[in-house]
């Protein structure tokens, strides 16, 4: 399952109003580590689709949201719950480490 893309237009509904916890992957085309972590996030999305939604936000196309959430490094993965950021993970990490970082949302 490929994590679906969200944008400034859909962010409110898909992320902020989502009943489930949502991980937003802030990424860009030109970011090598983002491309490396993307398939790992897709795997986690597939394996834990009952607990955690995973979506991608392109920072080039959505600079307003990147600024709002003070993104200064990508990949930046932010978990939202009830409209609030409850966890931030920065940088591409191997799957077992990401799973540890996200344990409380996928456990």
């Amino acid at each position, binding site marked *: 399952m490929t994590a679906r893309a969200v944008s400034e237009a859909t962010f409110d509904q898909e992320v902020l109003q989502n009943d489930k916890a949502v991980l937003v992957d802030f990424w*860009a085309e*030109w*970011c*090598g*580590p*983002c491309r*490396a*972590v993307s398939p*790992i996030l897709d795997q986690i999305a597939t394996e834990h689709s009952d607990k955690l939604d995973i979506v991608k936000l392109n*920072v080039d196309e959505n600079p307003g949201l*990147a600024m709002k959430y*003070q*993104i*200064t*490094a*990508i990949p*930046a993965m932010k978990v939202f719950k009830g409209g609030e950021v409850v966890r*931030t993970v*920065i*940088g*591409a*990490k*191997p*799957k*077992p480490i990401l799973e540890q970082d996200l344990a409380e949302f996928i456990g």
Partner: protein
Amino acid sequence: MRDIIIIGSGPAGFTAAIYAARAELKPLLIASSVEIGGELMNTTEVENFPGFPEGIMGPDLMGKMQAQAERFGTEVVYDDVVELDVEGPVKRVKLGNGGGHEAKSLIFATGSAYRKLGLPEEERLSGHGLSWCATCDGFFFREKTIAVVGGGDSAMEEATFLTRFADKVYVIHRRDQLKASKIMQQRAFDNPKIEFVWNAEVSAIHGDTAVTGVTLRDTVSGDVSALDLDGLFVAIGNDPRTHLVHGKLDLTAEGTIAVDGRSSRTSVPGVFAAGDVIDPTYRQAVTAAGSGTVAALDAEHYLAALEDTDGEPAAASAEAAEVDELVAVDLADATR
């Protein structure tokens, strides 16, 4: 069991794979899960790799190396080695996904990792204005004031690249002259957005949730001053990535894996090392590639000798060492 496993996917690893694959050794290359391609993946234009007169983007160069290695039969695995067993004739690697592989020989080409400043606030502010990757994070510093720490080629490249976004880029260096190549120095000196802060080291980073500045200590006078910043990029060098082989392979005083003379032979027969992980001095893409070639040829000799002696690795290694001595004598003759 395989003939050869290569750990690492930078220029050393992929070049070793090209040679080993062309020798029909069907190498397995373990590329890592998130750092495939190594350090060049985080660079922009590579201008000093021969054969690309117009320059080539780092990720493109690595993509081509991988394609070339795969064309001759290299199998690439996107996972991380978490454990390594190098003793004895069968080398074993354990992967992050729980799987494992065995081979008669091993090429270790794990490169190096960014050196940290060693400050307590580093962990907390990392990703919040503190960065090791200008190409990843520079974009977020449009019209900002930032600094690069370091005086080598990487620092000059980062500083020059960051002027595309930032209004002002300080280069903080602890000496009064740069280590960088002349062309990279000149490019930075000529850039009106770059200002050098000489003889200075960062002794503290300010900011609660994001970088707001640094404390600088003058390395000559000891004077302390503050500099307001929106971001800090660190390019103070790299350390060889050897944690997997601590206590298993001999290391040098510099922390690199010790190899025998100009060869790639480590302290354990059948285990070869190449690239930045054995190189405390040059650390270029092209020297790493050359070093990968050496490792593949050494591994090939080792495997051939292994077959001749019916799988007795000690004898194979001794024979290889003898060959090297002969080469050394030839070279000595030639210089006389």
